[in-house]
């Protein structure tokens, strides 16, 4: 134990000496903090697996440098995440931080990285404050802005000519933000809006109210287990015949499809990525992921994979000069890599501008279900509504 600690310290010490004297680093260190235990762990595990897959396919390197990924579990607790960030930044001297799933956890831990001049690349959480007035030169979101899926869903409801919608979300900030995103694009009438307790699992009372309200469309923001239970009960109550259930992509992803099963067939959802995208980078990613982990990748896995790809491209263009934060920023911003989602670029607030697609759940030809995307994007070259509040140019 002590010996191992000593050895680690010695290596770290030598590494510090080297980095102080050598002009170019000889390896890249990435701090990866995510939710890897508890009921929400599926999301963090997929981001991690996607990230590590990209590193593995690249021969254990980012750019031309060998990479060390320090993976740790935030246990779904903001204070734990903050401690892990501090450890990664101050003791391990990482070059990049990434990995967090949940916005509230990321926002709590982020200052440890940004205040110490370490760049954070978000593989999921992209809350609206960080896109607008709190935008930061050291913060990159390689995923999608928190509102985007919901804006896309509202647009899809317009396109289908739906006139009335009922909205349901947990009673907390992200729930309210998501419904605000839907309302921003939806042109019809919101005939009901219900906020439930965060973590609620039995929705009988809400389903009765939805039945009485008779909306054409029901849109829900219920991440994780809440969504799984709701969809099962929605189908069990026989509401699926009269009401179109519309979902954000992560509520109709592979980790929801598997436990819910056949009731998922035919449901529409919106996302920036789908396992059936035909571009070469995605084909390779989906095939390799299935080979490595024996399961279909989720959105989260694709985001983890892209986060590693982005770092890879930036380190490659920097030719190893990782010490210069400003140069690293520029390299990230202009990084050229084949994203699994297809074309994408950073806005001035370092949030993505990209296409969003409608997906529908259908047979995968092997007795299971999988998402299939529409050819035409529902939102094209879409940024976010907060960018003008960001002073960065």
């Amino acid at each position: 134990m002590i010996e191992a600690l000593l050895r680690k310290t010695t290596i770290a010490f030598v590494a510090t000496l080297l980095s102080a004297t050598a002009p170019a680093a000889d390896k890249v260190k990435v701090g990866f903090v995510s939710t890897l235990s508890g009921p929400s762990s599926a999301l963090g595990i997929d981001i991690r697996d996607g990230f590590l897959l990209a590193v593995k396919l690249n021969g254990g390197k980012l750019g031309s440098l060998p990479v060390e990924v320090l993976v740790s579990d935030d246990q779904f607790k903001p204070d734990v995440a903050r401690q892990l960030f501090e450890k990664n930044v101050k003791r391990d001297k990482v070059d990049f931080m990434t990995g967090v799933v949940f916005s509230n956890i990321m926002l709590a831990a982020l200052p440890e990285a940004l205040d110490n001049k370490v760049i954070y690349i978000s593989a999921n959480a992209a809350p609206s404050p960080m896109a607008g007035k709190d935008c930061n030169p050291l913060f990159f979101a390689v995923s999608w802005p928190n509102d985007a899926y919901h804006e896309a869903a509202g647009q899809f409801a317009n396109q289908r000519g739906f006139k009335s919608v009922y909205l349901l979300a947990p009673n907390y900030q992200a729930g309210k933000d998501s419904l605000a995103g839907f309302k921003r694009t939806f042109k019809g009438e919101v005939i009901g809006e219900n906020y439930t307790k965060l973590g609620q699992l039995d929705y009988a009372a809400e389903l009765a109210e939805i039945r009485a309200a008779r909306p054409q469309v029901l849109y829900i923001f219920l991440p994780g287990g809440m969504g799984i239970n709701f969809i099962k009960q929605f189908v069990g109550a026989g509401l699926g015949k009269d009401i179109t259930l519309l979902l954000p992509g992560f509520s109709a992803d592979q980790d929801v499809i598997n436990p819910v099963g056949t009731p998922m067939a035919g449901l529409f959802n919106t996302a920036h990525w789908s396992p059936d995208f035909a571009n070469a980078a995605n084909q390779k990613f989906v095939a390799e992921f299935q080979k490595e982990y024996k399961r279909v990748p989720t959105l989260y896995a694709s985001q983890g994979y892209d986060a590693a790809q982005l770092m890879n491209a930036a380190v490659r263009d920097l030719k190893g000069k990782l010490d210069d934060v400003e140069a690293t920023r520029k390299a990230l911003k202009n990084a050229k890599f084949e994203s699994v989602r297809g074309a994408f670029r950073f806005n001035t607030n370092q949030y993505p501008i990209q296409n969003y697609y409608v997906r529908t759940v259908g047979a995968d030809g092997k007795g299971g279900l999988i998402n299939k995307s529409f050819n035409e994007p529902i939102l094209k070259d879409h940024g976010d509504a907060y960018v003008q509040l960001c002073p960065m140019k």
Partner: protein
Amino acid sequence: MTGIFVLEQALNGLQFGLMLFLLASGLTLIFGVMDMINLAHGSLYMVGAFLCAWLTSATGSFVFGVLGGVVLTALFGAVLEVSLLRSLYARDHLSQVLATFALILILNDGVKMVFGADLPLAAPAALDGPVELLPGLMYPAYRLVILAVGFGLALLLYVLVQKTRVGALVRAGASNREMSGAMGVDVARLFTVVFAIGAALCAVAGGLLGPLLAVQVGMGENILILAFVIIVIGGIGSIRGALIGAILVGAVDTLGRTLLQQLFREFLPPQWASAAGPAFASIAVYVFMAVVLVLKPQGLFPVRS
């Protein structure tokens, strides 16, 4: 608001109330008969749900899984009573609270070590769909099964407590423990039987609610609080009180979640209503309990006067 809406909500409230009754009836007997505060009652519900889920996936049959889970949980309860809880009866309530709270933590981690943090449990596919009760009222078949089982068990428990010898002993124990012991009742064995029945009822609730909620570690803690509210409302030691209390709490909770939000929308701007509705809905049950206690401090059906 239509008749169908009210009817559907009434069924929902009743269904939730009957499941709460299964928990509360065991709790009220243990509290009433043994004068024992068992905080770990919710853990029996969790253990029951895990055993049901485990047996369901092992046997491939939901019915066998739940029946087997109920039997195993009753055995588990009996062993727990004989080996550990028995020594707590003579202690004061604070010691009981401390010991059974420790039991919650131990059982949570124990279940996690044996089964993992959660187990999948799905209702039989035949019950996945809805049943048309009235024109325009589709109700999930599975919830109807829960209603039927809940009613059946309530009736069975009533017959057991009111019409059988064991029931007479239980009632005697609840109204005066020392006296019934002095009259020659084998109190120790009676307690074990009561505890095992309480555990079995928990397992029924856990197994039936598992597919609607989730079978996961810690699932018993929130529902335990409601069970305590129910026995306080109903009167400690009273099965009838537990039934009435459970149905009232189920109804207040269900109606509170929807009607309160609608009510607030009538006279508040939407953003306030959506904040106030859920907040008040989650305290509605406790407000109800406070009102009952002001009017009837011993609960609705006091056993001891």
